[in-house]
């Protein structure tokens, strides 16, 4: 058991920290959240700056411990997170890196790392949420193209994306999990329609994507035909694994901000609130240690996080909701004001027990795959 880093890693941390101190002050201020092109431009610009400084591929092409330090330091410094590059850097990119051909890697990975192309995710469908394998978007083969019809939902950044990692059904007669393929779809292809989807937080981070006879080259398929489910599981294990490192660091900062706010306005004298914040401090400290544990396991085991990510995601998504409920307690009547800090984050925290596998689904995964309990049905 060792939580210290190698001299090389500590040197990396020092260099990164120094670079952040120069790079962040010249970063343009965050644009209006509703201005998608401006957000895209800023996020890509930051990715380009990271790339130019040699930090471009830390999201997947580094040792897990180096990546941990990268996320820890960038978040602590208040640097932007992946933003519009989210799917490219954390989902599609790692999947292409692990499962794509050399040609596919050469075509798609550099533009992601250089901040030139934005990806979005076309997995969920109105009728296929928790039960992703029931997806119905259909791809028929027509020569060296697939012709795709169907619709996708909860596609983030779709309005400004260049590519979509798309799950389609290529064999409707095969068992559910066996007839799915993974395609890279250009978002400007004829037949693609994007309709923004307003969430309960009032924002339009997501969209519905309608596909009407969209032609996608067969060469854009990553992995074998009908092997898309396995390819997808690789992607999802990333999502459930270490994708939340930066968020845990951020939550710990929010907790300190809450304590400071409570101290300022006298609510700190309320023992119920104070001890609640103390308990949340324990919670997020433990989540940070669990993150380190998972990263350390990944470093030892080869990089792809295992089902252990479900344990983390379960605990974290509820802790995050508890954190923002505590924030509402600190805010008092201010919790009803969308302009108060933390209020929009509280709203979006509501999705954490639902998105990327509901808590119910995660518990079943833990029970059946980690604990070996018999399959329910």
């Amino acid at each position, binding site marked *: 058991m060792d939580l210290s880093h190698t001299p090389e890693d500590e040197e990396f941390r020092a260099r990164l920290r120094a670079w952040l101190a120069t790079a962040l002050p010249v970063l343009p201020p965050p644009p209006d959240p509703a201005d998608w092109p401006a957000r895209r431009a800023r996020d890509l610009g930051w990715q380009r700056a990271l790339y130019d400084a040699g930090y471009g591929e830390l999201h997947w092409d580094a040792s897990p411990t180096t990546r941990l330090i990268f996320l820890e330091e960038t978040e602590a410094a208040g640097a932007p997170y992946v933003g519009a590059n989210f799917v490219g850097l954390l989902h599609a990119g790692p999947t292409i890196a692990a499962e794509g051909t050399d040609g596919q890697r050469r075509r798609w990975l550099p533009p992601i790392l250089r901040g030139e192309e934005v990806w979005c995710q076309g997995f969920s469908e109105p009728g296929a949420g928790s*039960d992703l394998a029931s997806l119905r978007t259909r791809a028929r083969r027509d020569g060296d193209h697939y012709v795709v019809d169907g619709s996708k939902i909860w596609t983030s950044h779709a309005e400004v994306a260049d590519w979509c990692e798309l799950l389609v059904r290529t064999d409707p007669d095969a068992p559910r999990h066996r007839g799915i393929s993974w395609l890279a779809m250009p978002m400007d292809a004829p037949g693609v329609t994007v309709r923004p989807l307003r969430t309960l937080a009032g924002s339009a981070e997501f969209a519905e994507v309608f596909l009407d006879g969209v032609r996608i080259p067969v060469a854009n398929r990553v992995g074998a035909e009908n092997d898309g489910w396995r390819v997808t599981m690789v992607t999802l294990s990333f999502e459930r694994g270490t994708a939340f490192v930066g968020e845990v660091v951020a939550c710990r900062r929010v907790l300190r901000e809450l304590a400071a706010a409570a101290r300022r306005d006298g609510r700190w004298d309320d023992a119920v609130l104070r001890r609640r914040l103390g308990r949340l401090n324990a919670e997020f400290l433990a989540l940070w240690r669990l993150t380190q544990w998972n990263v350390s396991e990944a470093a030892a085991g080869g990089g792809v996080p295992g089902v252990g990510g479900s344990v983390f995601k379960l605990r974290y998504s509820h802790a995050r909701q508890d954190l923002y409920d505590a924030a509402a307690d600190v805010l008092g009547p201010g919790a*009803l004001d*969308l*302009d108060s800090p933390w209020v929009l984050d509280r709203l979006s925290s509501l999705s954490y027990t639902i998105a990327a596998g509901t808590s119910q689904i995660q518990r*079943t995964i833990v029970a059946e795959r980690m604990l070996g309990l018999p399959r329910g049905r």
Partner: protein
Amino acid sequence: MRFQLTEDQTALRRATRDLLERRFGERERRAAAGGGSLDRALWRTLGDAGFFALCLPERDGGVGLGFPEAVLVFEEAGRALLTGPLIATLRAAGEVPGAASGETVVAAADGWTVEWLAAADVARPDTADAVAVRSVDPLTPLHRVARAARVDPVAVLLTAAEQLGTAVRVCELAVQHARTREQFGRPIGAFQAVQHLCAGLLVRAETARAAVYAAAVTGARTDIAAARLLADEAAVDGARDCLQVHGGMGFTWESEVHLHLKRAWVRAGRGGGGAAAEEALAAALTA
């Protein structure tokens, strides 16, 4: 002891539900959530129906009913997500001219906030220093005041009734969705995890119902304090669990679910929140 509703009470509830379904259905609610102003015609319809004069004695031109009836009506208002400063106007009936009839819309500071201040004709008590905030609930415009207003136990009781309405409604919504939404080849309501979320929704709603109705009957402070705690819990946790049952489908702006959660949050903040009720109930244990 006949705790259940009388026939008159059942009829009153039915009539209120019918009126609200007719006059404040999904269409009107969506329009309001889009940022609409107070529907004055609806307000007068409510006034004509005796909504605001419910508890006003008949000699003063009121309907002359008691808190049990008011609680049933406000449960329906909560269920329907009915908008406007309903409680403030009802409490002003008999004191502010036109309030009872729905001609005058009355806003009142309650705890740290005033709902619907800009739309109101009369505001009480003093709300001169009130500052508009961007309300988390798209159906409830809010202002904030600098000094907490005195807490009115009747307003607390009627708020608890509204929360009960939300608790009942989100249970219905969750059950409807669980019955019809299919995943893994069957309705999600056939999965124990979903079944048990729904069972929890009903248990909380029915426990809150007993507490709220009893508080209406006795009017006792401890009963009202208990009712508010149970009803806040049933509404807030209920809306959360309803959202969980709906999954992504409940996360869209178009869904009714988030409106219940946000309204439940707004109501849970009335009267300065629930901590005072906990303290009062603790103190009552040693009285």
